[in-house]
């Protein structure tokens, strides 16, 4: 049995690149629509909440509300981009388009495919998150250099949420089930994890829950960088995010093996 699982793990450190490049080629053909689609939602949130609520809220921790919100929206858009790319696009490649089936006939393994898909979803998360950061910097809510520093955090956020969504994909019988993950996990996280208001506003029990959620660690990494503030507990945040990226990755491979290779 153990031998069976070993055979489906990533075969080496570079096989996944072929899968990433396949997705990149497909994306290039529809890039403009894809980028606009990924940007519209977080932009609406940033300006709608930022300017609208910003008037009522005033300053948070000494910065304007919209500047506070910018870091949260960068993390949120990275989360959303990676989640949706994995749930809908990767699911389609696994099922309707039979792309995975074709790849499994080559010398790539299931693990290579999953890793390539995660890397691709993380790439899209970097595009989406960085675009929001660029808008924020253009409007003067963040320093330009801070974008560069926040990219690694955005990328790991993308990996985390692609990895989590991959577990959902490996279990979901059809598209209809994704809405549960979206409404019961992803959306509540936006509000629990300090993306739109400080975690300290919540009752302490909720704060403890937030401390366990991956988006909170992303926000705590990205926001201070964008605001030019000192960040605390970087090691803890990175460690937690790595766990959230790696464990679901292996879990999803094991689940896909049961699903696709029986």
């Amino acid at each position, binding site marked *: 049995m153990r031998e069976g699982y070993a*055979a489906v793990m990533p075969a080496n450190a570079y096989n996944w690149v072929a899968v990433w490049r396949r997705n990149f080629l*497909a994306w290039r053909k529809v890039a403009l629509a894809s980028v606009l689609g990924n940007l519209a939602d977080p932009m609406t949130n940033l300006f709608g909440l930022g300017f609208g609520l910003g008037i009522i809220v005033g300053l948070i921790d000494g910065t304007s509300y919209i500047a506070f919100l910018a870091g949260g929206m960068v993390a949120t858009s990275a989360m959303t981009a990676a989640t949706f790319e994995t749930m809908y696009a990767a699911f389609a490649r696994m099922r309707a*388009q039979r*792309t995975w089936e074709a790849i499994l006939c080559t010398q790539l393994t299931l693990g290579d495919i999953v890793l390539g898909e995660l890397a691709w979803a993380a790439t899209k998360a970097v595009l989406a998150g960085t675009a929001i950061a660029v808008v924020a910097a253009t409007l003067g809510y963040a320093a330009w250099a801070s974008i560069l520093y926040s990219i690694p955090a955005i990328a790991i956020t993308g990996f985390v949420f692609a990895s989590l969504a991959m577990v959902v994909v490996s279990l979901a019988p059809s598209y209809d089930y994704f809405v549960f993950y979206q409404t019961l996990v992803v959306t509540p996280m936006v509000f629990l994890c300090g993306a739109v208001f400080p975690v300290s506003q919540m009752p302490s029990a909720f704060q403890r829950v937030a401390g366990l959620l991956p988006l909170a660690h992303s926000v705590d990494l990205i926001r201070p960088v964008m605001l030019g503030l000192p960040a605390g507990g970087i090691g803890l945040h990175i460690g937690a995010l790595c766990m959230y990226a790696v464990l679901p990755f292996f879990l999803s491979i094991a689940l896909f093996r049961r699903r696709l290779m*029986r």
Partner: protein
Amino acid sequence: MSTVAIDLTCVRKSYGDKIVVNGLSFAVASGECFGLLGPNGAGKSTIARMVLGMVAPDTGKMTVLGEPVPARARLARARIGVVPQFDNLELEFTVRENLLVFGRYFNMSAREVEAVVPELLEFARLESKADARVAELSGGMKRRLTLARALINDPHLLVMDEPTTGLDPHARHLIWERLRLLLARGKTILLTTHFMEEAERLCDRLCVLEAGRKIAEGEPRALIDEQIGCQVIEIYGGNPHELSSLIRPYARHIEVSGETLFCYAPDPEQVLVQLRGRAGLRLLQRPANLEDVFLRLTGREMER
């Protein structure tokens, strides 16, 4: 490389209570075309997937191109080309892009792929379609592209799951011709099919399957001679039971399947004499084929 391309020993696979592959053993020699023949649900596709390491057997031993499968199936797959039952080409990509992307899955560089693309396009007769989107191709062209794609890594072994199902006769003959060319070049082919004609035309040897069990194995001609060994008269119309008692003395064997009566007759003339003058009968005399073998062995026709 060893001269045995595929070796299965006592392979068994079941899903719940349903036994899909039941103690199957066979060996495919390098350079031969080996057919897995049987009706839908006989376990052909499961066996093809097992050979590729995509399905692990419950018990039994498998070796493919010298590698134990499924444990080291990846290394075997590096030297295998696969034509799946259902096309899984990239519809939004061009023909050339499909080959490029697939070549990368075998760690081929763009230059290496470019070097073999013209030859593959010529082989698939798709030279004029290199930059056409796959979605615009006909069913036969897609099938030929799938075949070309399967050759991108210059495989020793081709695994083909129902390669011509759903094609019109013209497209099917073109594929058969291409496959014979590959055999002439020394490739080994494992072919699953429920087309008797396909199996007869292409396969050096074949294994007839029913419900996951091997019911016969051998060269197509030898199987036909051994199991039937005479002419066949198909009789349509009339009451099969009445007719069968009439001609039984002159027949080696009689099968009734649906409305058709199959009469295996060493001396067909004598049977025809008996039936002469009967109204409403349609008769067809022909040499025996694998369809008859299957009917003989299982007592029923292949489902189409």
